[in-house]
C-alpha cells in the first residue's frame, strides 16, 4: 500500500462520515422546517399529534426537567463537596461512592425506566407522573453532574483553602464564599451536560411519566416529554411523520443550545484554572 493510497483511504473514510452526517442533518432540517411554525409551538396537540402543536408537551418536558434538577442539584452538589473537601483522595468510602457512580453512569436508560416504574411509580405510589419521570431522570444525571462538579472543585488550588484557613474562616464559609463560586462554571457545565442527556431521554420516561398529551395541571399528572412524543408519532400514529420531524428539529435545537452552553462554560472554567496555578 503506497502512501497515496493510505492518504486517500483516510480522506474517503472521513468523507463517508461527513456525507452520512449531512444526509441526516439535511433531512431533519428540511422536513422539520416545513412543518415548524410559531403556532405549532404554542397550540394544543390534536388528533394524537397529527395536527395541532406541542405546547402541552413542551411544558411537560420543562416540568420533568425542573423536577430532575430540583432533586439532582442539592444531592449532587453535596456529594461532590463531600468527595473533594471532606474525604482524603484515597479514602475507601470515597472510592466506593465514585465507583458506584461510574457504574451507574453506564446503566442502560431502559433499565432506569424499569427501576423508575417499580420504585417511584409503584412502590412510592407516585404513579405515571411528571414527578416519577423527573426523579428517574435525576438518578440518571447524578453521576455526570457529581463527577464534573468534583473535577471543578478539585481544580481549585489548595493555596486558597490554606489562605482561608489562615484567615480563620470556618469551613462552611470557605465553601460558600470561595470554593463554590470558583468552581461554579464547572458545576454549571456538569449540570448542562446532565440536562442535555435528560432532554434527549425517551426510554426511561415511557413507563414513568407516561404518554398523556394533555396540558398538565399538577406535578402528579402524567406528562408526555418531547422525545416520547417523537417516538409515539413515528411508531404509533400513521401520518404523524411531519409533526415528528418538526418536534425532532425543536428537540435538536434545544439540545444544541444546552450543549453549546455547557461547552462555553467549561471553556471558561479551563481558562480560569490556568490563573490559579
Amino acid at each position, binding site marked *: 500500500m503506497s502512501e497515496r493510497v493510505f492518504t486517500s483511504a483516510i480522506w474517503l*473514510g472521513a468523507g463517508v462520515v461527513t456525507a452520512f452526517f449531512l444526509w441526516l442533518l439535511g433531512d431533519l432540517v428540511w422536513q422539520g422546517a416545513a412543518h415548524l411554525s410559531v403556532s405549532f409551538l404554542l397550540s394544543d396537540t390534536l388528533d394524537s399529534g397529527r395536527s395541532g402543536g406541542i405546547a402541552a408537551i413542551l411544558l411537560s418536558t420543562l416540568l420533568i426537567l425542573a423536577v430532575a434538577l430540583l432533586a439532582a442539584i442539592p444531592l449532587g452538589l453535596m456529594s461532590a463537596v463531600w468527595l473533594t473537601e471532606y474525604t482524603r483522595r484515597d479514602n475507601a468510602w470515597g472510592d466506593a461512592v465514585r465507583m458506584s457512580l461510574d457504574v451507574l453512569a453506564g446503566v*442502560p436508560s431502559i433499565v432506569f425506566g*424499569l427501576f423508575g416504574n417499580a420504585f417511584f411509580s409503584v412502590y412510592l405510589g407516585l404513579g405515571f407522573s411528571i414527578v416519577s419521570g423527573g426523579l428517574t431522570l435525576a438518578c440518571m444525571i*447524578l453521576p455526570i453532574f457529581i463527577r464534573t462538579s468534583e473535577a471543578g472543585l478539585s481544580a481549585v488550588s489548595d493555596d486558597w483553602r490554606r489562605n482561608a484557613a489562615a484567615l480563620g474562616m470556618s*469551613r462552611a464559609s470557605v465553601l460558600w464564599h470561595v470554593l463554590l463560586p470558583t468552581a461554579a462554571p464547572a458545576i454549571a457545565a456538569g449540570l448542562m451536560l446532565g440536562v442535555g442527556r435528560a432532554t434527549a431521554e425517551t426510554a426511561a420516561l415511557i413507563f414513568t411519566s407516561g404518554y398523556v398529551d394533555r396540558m398538565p395541571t399538577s406535578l402528579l399528572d402524567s406528562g408526555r416529554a418531547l422525545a416520547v412524543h417523537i417516538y409515539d408519532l413515528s411508531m404509533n400514529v400513521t401520518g404523524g411523520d411531519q409533526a415528528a420531524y418538526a418536534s425532532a428539529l425543536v*428537540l*435538536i435545537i434545544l439540545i444544541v443550545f444546552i450543549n453549546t452552553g455547557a461547552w462555553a462554560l467549561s471553556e471558561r472554567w479551563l481558562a480560569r484554572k490556568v490563573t490559579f496555578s
Partner: protein
Amino acid sequence: MNNFRVTDRWLAPALGVAAAGSGLILLLVLAFLLREAAPLWGSHAVLGFVLDASWYPLEGQFGMLPMVAASLAAALGALLLAAPLGIISAIFLNFLAPPAVARSYRMMVALLAGIPSVVFGLWGLTVLVPLIARWQPPGASLLAAMMILALMILPTVTLTSASAIAAVPQNLQQGAAALGLTRQGMILRVVLPAARGGITNGILLSGARALGETMAVLMVAGNVVQYPLGLLQPVRVLTANIALEMAYATDAHRAALFASGLLLTLVVMLLAWLAIRANRQVSYV
C-alpha cells in the same frame, strides 16, 4: 460568621449522608430489579430463560436466547461498521486534516454525539428502512439496526480514539521519523499500537452503549422475536422487548422483563469493567 461556625458542626455529617445516598442509588436500582424479578427465582422459569425455545410470554415461556443473540449481533455489527470509520476519523483528525478542517470535523462529530436516539430512530424509520425495503423487503431489519447504531456510536469511537492517539508521546513519533519511516508506517506501526489501550477502551464502551440502546433499535429493527439468521430479517433485541411489553405485562411476564433488564445491566457492567482494564494496560511498546 457565627452562623457558619454552627453550620460547620452539622455540615460534614449532612454531606456524608448525601454522598452515601448518591452512592446507594446503584444498589437501589439493582435491588429493585431483583425484587421485581423475585416471583421467578427458584421456579422453573429461570431455567426457561435458556431452555425455552423462544419468548411466548402468554404461555409462560420466557426463552431469551433469540433476543440475546439479536442484541449481540446488532451491537457487534454496529462495532464492525463504526470501529474502522471511527479510527480512520481519529487518524484524519490527528494527522491529515488541516487545522480548520479538523475543527469543523470535530464540531460535526460533537453535534452527532448530541443527537437524541429517538431522532436517529425517526430518521432510520423514515429514510433508511424504506431504502432497504426497496432493495429487499421488509426493510426493518438487523441491517438497519446495525447501521443506525453504528452512526450513534461513531462519535464515541472517534473522540476516544482521537484522544488516545493524541496522548501517544511525541518522542515515539520523532523516533519513527528519525528511523526513516513514512507517515503511513509511523501511524500504522507505531502510533496505533501505542494507542491500542485507549482505542480498545472506547470500542468496548461503545459496544456497551450499543447493547443498552433502546429507542433507535426498536424503531428500525422490525421487532420479530427470532434468531438473527440473516442481515435483512427483522429481529427484536432485549431492550426493545422491555419497551414494547412493559405497558401490558403482569405477574410472571413482568418479572421476566425485569430479569432481562438485570441481565442487560450485568452484561453492560462487564463490558465497562473490561474497558477500564484495557485502558489500564497502556504500555508504550
